[in-house]
């Protein structure tokens, strides 16, 4: 690692489905999805109220403080 990022924290804190979670700095949304074991599952992702399409997950780097919702379909009327 280069010395110019030593001021960056090693982790970022986000909230996933209402639960606080720490991730390695520089993690993308896709990294989070994979860490949670949701890769390939039928899910949709929202960050701070806005949907992030699957194709954009890898390019969305988490900076900390995001409120993330990961949803799927369940039975309902």
């Amino acid at each position, binding site marked *: 690692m280069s010395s110019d990022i030593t001021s960056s924290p090693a982790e970022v804190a986000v909230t996933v*489905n209402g639960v606080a979670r720490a991730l390695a700095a520089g993690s993308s949304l896709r990294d989070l999805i994979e860490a949670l*074991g949701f890769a390939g*599952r039928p899910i949709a992702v*929202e960050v701070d109220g806005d949907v992030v399409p699957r194709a954009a997950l890898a390019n969305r780097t988490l900076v900390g403080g995001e409120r993330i919702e990961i949803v*799927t*379909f369940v*039975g*309902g*009327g």
Partner: protein
Amino acid sequence: MHSVDTTAAIPALDDAPLVVGGITLASRLVVGTGKYATYAEMARCLDVSGTDCVTVAVRRERLINAAGENILDHLDAARYSLLPNTAGCYSADDAVRVARLGRELLRDMGSATSEWVKLEVLGDTKTLLPDPVGTLEATEKLVADGFSVLVYTSDDPVIAKRLKGLGAASVMPAGSPIGSGQGVLNANNLRICLEYLKDGDPAYPVIVDAGVGTASDVAFAMELGADGVLLNTAIAHAQDPVRMAAAMRAACQAGRLAFLAGRMPRRLYATASSPDDGRIVRPT
């Protein structure tokens, strides 16, 4: 096991299919996927009901045990059009958020109904009655965002007309409160809703959504001229859900046939079915 074939005895309907938001449905029954004891029972009920359109809800994925079964493992997306709902939303903004997540899930699946939403904006946790103001607001926002909005509403004809005016793909008045099993409580309001919504636009789809308790409720709604009926609990919480699913299928077809056939007028007094002429006796 059940061996009910409700279609064998029913003649083919000379009837145009139900089209909602550009999607043609073979069945006029829309069935919810909630409250079944098991996914296997749900799948069997959907199969027996004859439906080709089912509702689903959008909820947080479980962070623990995420490898568990998903409802989509038990729903053939090639067979059933999926209609995601906004159940549990009490504001227009929340409903729009949930609708967009449902759309993203369907788009990701390549679903033909990805722009569909069953809009519910609820006003009260006890009655689950719709909030008419929030429902109007959310309908406007979702239509502007390109959704085909199938909107759950009360049986108020004025609100129904306003929702259609805002561009709803289908207005879905409740027969009675969600999950109450009380059937159609105000047939006259439904009649007026149907008259207003279909005025000059007979193909406009009106689906009675909520309140069905048993098969006669479905038949009655269809006899009034509803284009379809959406139900869930009446099947899922029947003593024998699979048999009730068959009953709902038959009732939907019976009610539709009766509507198309046109019922006889009601009369206060009797009219004899056997001829007066040739009687060997006289009335006393």
